[in-house]
């Protein structure tokens, strides 16, 4: 009996403590549970790799377009192509002369990406594909410089460092808009909703479904990468 009482007292006490904190209503009350520990600067250094368009997180270092070209041909060209044109279904980095209003336009760095810093961030965190986070910051600057050069955003003799990267303005930066949805308002019609029903397209005729041996290759097929 006494032991059960003490268990009850103990549990009740612990519960009351937690409830008191919750009831205090302070969403960010001082560490109420004591779980986890402070992270060290050394630990953070290895993982805090993100770079923002305002320069937050941009590390020291530098690399030239010329250095970047050699690194790019060695580590990037096998997928992205010698000139960034993209091989097979690997992503193209350049868009050529196409416009974004074209049907099925190419979306390269120069004509689509809003910020050059994103290129640095992405190469540093995820490239080369299959050997991520293997490059020095100087190498990342150099490859970033070369890809920007392929997109006519940097001259052939340029050297890229943090301040220079922040000065680069890409042409599509002002063309991103907030989400306007819901942008389509459909009626909840129940009866006699249409005069005529006509077929627009049939999957059977495209014949690109896996296992469909008729297999026409359609260049308009969407891509994910």
């Amino acid at each position: 009996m006494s032991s059960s009482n003490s268990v009850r007292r103990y549990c009740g006490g612990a519960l009351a403590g937690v409830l008191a904190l919750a009831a205090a209503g302070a969403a960010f009350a001082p560490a109420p549970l004591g779980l986890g520990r402070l992270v060290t600067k050394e630990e953070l250094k290895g993982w805090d790799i993100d770079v923002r368009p305002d320069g937050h997180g941009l590390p020291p270092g530098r690399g030239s377009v010329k250095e970047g070209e050699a690194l790019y041909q060695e580590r990037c060209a096998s997928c992205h192509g010698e000139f960034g044109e993209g091989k097979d279904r690997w992503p193209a980095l350049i868009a050529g002369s196409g416009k974004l209003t074209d049907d099925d336009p190419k979306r390269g760095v120069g004509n689509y990406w809003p910020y050059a810093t994103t290129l640095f961030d992405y190469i540093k965190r995820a490239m080369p594909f299959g050997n991520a986070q293997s490059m020095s910051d100087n190498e990342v600057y150099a490859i970033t410089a070369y890809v920007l050069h392929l997109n006519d955003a940097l001259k052939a003799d340029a050297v890229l460092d943090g301040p220079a990267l922040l000065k680069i303005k890409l042409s599509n930066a002002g063309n991103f808009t907030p989400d306007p949805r819901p942008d389509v308002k459909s009626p909840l019609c129940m009866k006699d909703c249409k005069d005529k029903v006509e077929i627009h397209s049939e999957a059977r005729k495209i014949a690109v479904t896996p296992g469909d041996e008729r297999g026409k290759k359609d260049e308009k097929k969407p891509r994910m990468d």
Partner: protein
Amino acid sequence: MPADDRVPARSRADAAAKAGRLGRRGFLAAGAGVAAAALSGRAAQATTDNKYGPPHIPDWTKTLGPGVGDKPYGAPSPHEKQIIRRTVDWLTATKESSVSFTPIAEQLGIITPSGLHFERHHAGIADIDPKAHRLVVHGMVEREMIFTMDDIRRFPSASVVRFIECPANGGMEWRGAQLERCQYVRGMVSCSEWTGVPLRTLLRETGVKAGAKWMLAEGADAAAMTRSVPIQKALDDAMLCYGQNGEAIRPEQGYPLRLLLPGWEGNMSVKWLRRLEFGDQPWHTREETSKYTDLMPDGRSRQFTWFMEANSVVTFPSPERPLDGKGFYEMTGFAWSGLGRVRRVDVSIDGGRNWSPARLHDPIYAKALTRWSLPFRWNGEPLLVMSRAQDDTGYVQPSIAELRKVRGVNSIYHNNSMLTWHVKAGGEVENVQLK
């Protein structure tokens, strides 16, 4: 007659019945002539070709089966081996940055079996030792902290049933009907019971500074997948999940820890979660600039299109599941919305001319798959079958023609339009689009 959504479902059903689409017993009758089946003829047929059926005694009735523990971790019957995730090889350059689709047509309840949950990896499945895994929370917080999985499992926990959907679900169909399986045109959605820690609970440990408006979520995979999340969502219903359908999250779904942002683009529910950084502005990562932005006909792009709008699918009949002769069937499907609960689902068999309300099955959770059904009798005539969802914001699922009119065909993401199944006279079903 545009229906008023304040009219009770029963009145709507009555109105539809008067319009001749529903039989007296609430059946959707495909045309006239609800013929009685020739039962005696069928009985004569039944005994001839099944050597395991009565009057024969099959082996499984005579001999012992495997004992308990024969399969310490069970698997579906070998007779179900065709119910699997599938890929479309031409879609991507490599399987490591690609997608597999849930066999949604064959899913029998609102929970997607964990092994059938659709996959979208950006650099393959990270193979993580949970003892070594860490979550770092830093930036504009009061205390920059690091947590082990044991720490995270000690926090007060919660469980929710929520769908996760890739915003590219249906993305191959902007220009027209293209793929001949329900799985490929709506299979980038799955639904699970997720267990973990509400993010706001964990953030009590770190505190969040007053000026913090955004959170960067980063994965430990070889894409170090990153998305910027507005602080409102982080403090609303975001969760740090380690459980899926009663067991640890599957490696394909982010073992040992993933973020869950209910109702939002699946890729934002970052898998293999290793880091949360708080800041005063978004990061504009590759996955929210170059990708997962929606290109409009005027050449501008929508950015931060987070929520998944109401959607639905007819799973039977469907290209994978044709009709087998005239007679009674129960039409089935799913509906879901990233903005709340499914309020109603209507079904048409004449290409959207006339609609009948389907029955929604319990349980109906917000931001979860909701099952629906509608009994019908098929008279063998071709049908154009469609379903249409409305969520509790009042939003009605649009047609592809309505979406194309506003968004063109280059936006890849957020195609939540109604699908149309063309049921042919022989019962086979094809994916088509209507003008």
